[in-house]
């Protein structure tokens, strides 16, 4: 058995045979031609054919993935007809008396390099689009149809990377999963795969194509990003079980979708989802979560090679808010440090990072970073129902400083005439024992609390949650933790604030009844646990 790892961009499990996707490597030769006009006519015919193919792909994509996602192929058609691109090709043919294939390949390299050099990751990714259209023209010139990958068995497609047009052209009835050596979560492949509801793992690395052969049996876990080639019996049956559970979950989903989160005696609770990137929104909606209880904004910082700009952040927040269409979206401000490190922050190495310079402590000492994020958040607030949540609070004075900065940012935006929502809820994480103990003082200052049980457990029990040696001492149901949660809930309600739980404990259904009895108003869990918790809530009887 060989185990490979990549980044799962779409969950679910697949077991089946591997089909290695090879494209006819457009190894373009440079040949001298005498009849330039004939060569240009050949190019024109190939372009016409390429556009026709794209039109067909566009029509297919329109049906399968919707207009917004199909549009890329319409733009590809325009790119093929782009004047500069064509001038470059023609001029290479004319001045060098070379074949059209070569002229297209050189032009593609030049244009791709131009995009790759731009200071914008989105535009950099467009160099793949230039190569995609150019390869299409070249294959039309060679009169080689891309081979139809027909086989009756459903297969796991392994490839170095898949161009958008290749993803769509595959007969998805015959695809079990996508596994690619390269690719980014920004690529159309990742986006299309999610829309097509096919498990996908990207970024496995070059070893992928050295480790798999056509016809190999493999198990793919889109949740963990693992690929087991030629799995042993144990792994195979484990994955089969996971797949069965998946199907069971799907069945549950069908039954519970659209139903209320209400106990047998009529108590209602909100069940929201925790997510860490814009791409998880599909899962939030698919699992019928009532909102987003914790959106970890760190991904913007982790995925970037420098501080994300206000515009980049604004675009991401806006997209989340708009996608959730008026449902609550609680975005937590930057929480790095401790186990989440970002190079360009240049944080010093610490003896005790969990007790160190992290989260709000960074924001309150490097306020320019904090203000940029708050400006982006408030600007995005006009596009939905936003809540802003601050992590790692331990004192009233910290919260006073935060609220003052929020007010300052708000006033600046209003003075600039930028439209912002006046209903933005502000809340804090209760994840330090200190915050829980003074929750009576903090509650009047905010709209909501959200209990982060992972850190609250680690700080209350003095147990490093990443130290496997002390696992037996970590009792997540410890009375001290439950008392702190209950105390926070009482103080929240006494001061007109609401309280949720967004740590892992929120999904622990053996505690659902306990939490509801404390008066917890919201449970925020991974999208895949929403229906499981809904099920637990609907079985509770608090009377």
């Amino acid at each position: 058995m060989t185990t490979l790892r990549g980044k799962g961009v779409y969950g679910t499990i697949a077991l089946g045979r591997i089909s290695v996707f090879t494209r006819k490597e457009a190894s373009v030769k440079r040949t001298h031609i005498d009849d330039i006009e004939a060569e240009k006519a050949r190019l024109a015919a190939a372009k016409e054919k390429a556009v026709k193919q794209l039109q067909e792909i566009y029509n297919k994509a329109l049906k399968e993935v919707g207009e917004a996602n199909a549009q890329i192929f319409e733009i590809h058609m325009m790119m093929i007809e782009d004047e500069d691109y064509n001038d470059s090709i023609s001029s290479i043919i004319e001045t060098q008396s070379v074949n059209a294939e070569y002229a297209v390949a050189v032009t593609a390299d030049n244009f791709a390099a131009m995009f790759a050099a731009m200071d914008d990751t989105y535009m950099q990714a467009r160099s793949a689009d230039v190569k995609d259209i150019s390869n299409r023209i070249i294959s039309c010139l060679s009169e080689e149809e891309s081979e139809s990958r027909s086989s009756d068995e459903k297969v796991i497609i392994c490839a170095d990377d898949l161009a958008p047009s290749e993803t769509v052209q595959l007969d998805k009835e015959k695809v079990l999963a996508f596994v690619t050596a390269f690719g980014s979560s920004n690529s159309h492949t990742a986006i299309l795969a999610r829309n097509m509801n096919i498990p996908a793992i990207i970024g496995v690395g070059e070893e992928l194509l050295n480790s798999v052969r056509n016809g190999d049996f493999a198990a793919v876990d889109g949740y963990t990003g693992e690929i087991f080639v030629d799995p042993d019996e144990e792994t195979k049956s484990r994955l089969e079980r996971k797949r069965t559970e998946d199907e069971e979950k799907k069945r549950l989903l069908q039954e519970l979708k659209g139903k209320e989160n209400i106990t047998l005696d009529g108590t209602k609770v909100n069940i929201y989802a925790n997510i860490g990137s814009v791409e998880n929104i599909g899962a939030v909606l698919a699992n019928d979560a009532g909102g987003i209880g914790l959106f970890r904004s760190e991904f913007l910082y982790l995925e970037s090679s420098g501080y994300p700009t206000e515009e980049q952040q604004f675009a991401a927040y806006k997209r989340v808010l708009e996608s959730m269409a008026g449902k609550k979206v609680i975005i937590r401000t930057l929480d790095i440090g401790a186990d989440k490190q970002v190079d360009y922050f240049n944080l010093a190495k610490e003896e005790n990072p969990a007790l160190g310079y992290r989260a709000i402590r960074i924001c309150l000492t490097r306020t320019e970073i904090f203000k940029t994020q708050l400006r982006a958040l408030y600007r995005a607030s006009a596009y939905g129902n936003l809540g802003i949540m601050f992590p790692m609070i331990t004192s009233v004075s910290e919260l006073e400083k935060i609220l003052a900065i929020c007010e300052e940012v708000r006033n600046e935006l209003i003075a600039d005439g930028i439209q912002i929502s006046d209903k933005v809820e502000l809340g804090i994480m209760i994840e330090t024992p200190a915050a829980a103990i003074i929750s009576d003082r903090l509650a009047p200052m905010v709209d909501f609390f959200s209990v982060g049980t992972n850190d609250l457990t680690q700080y209350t029990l003095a147990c490093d949650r990443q130290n496997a040696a002390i696992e037996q001492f970590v009792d997540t149901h410890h009375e001290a933790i439950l008392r702190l949660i209950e105390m926070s809930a009482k103080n929240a309600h006494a001061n007109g604030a609401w309280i949720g739980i967004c740590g892992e404990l929120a999904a622990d259904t053996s505690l659902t009844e306990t939490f509801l009895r404390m008066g917890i108003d919201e449970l925020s869990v991974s999208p895949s646990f929403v229906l499981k918790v809904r099920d637990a809530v609907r079985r509770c009887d608090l009377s």
Partner: protein
Amino acid sequence: MVSKVVTVVNAEGMHMRPAGIIAKLAKEHPDSEVIMKANGKDIKAKAVMQIMAAGIKKGTEVELVVTGGDEQAVLDEFVKLFEDGFGE
């Protein structure tokens, strides 16, 4: 020749989709030459790759210059596209 200065209002600037929309509109008016002046460059509205490569961000001022054909009507159409943020 007619011209007007507009500001890019959509959050993500002139990325692929707006570039496609502009180029499409430009091609619907073959009699008019439409140039966008921004960031010190002259960009042909029908050249989708030029628009993308210009990397025009939100807040950038773009001077639209239309020459030939039904100049004012064509200019108005382009101005409206920018003002609507390309429907975003």
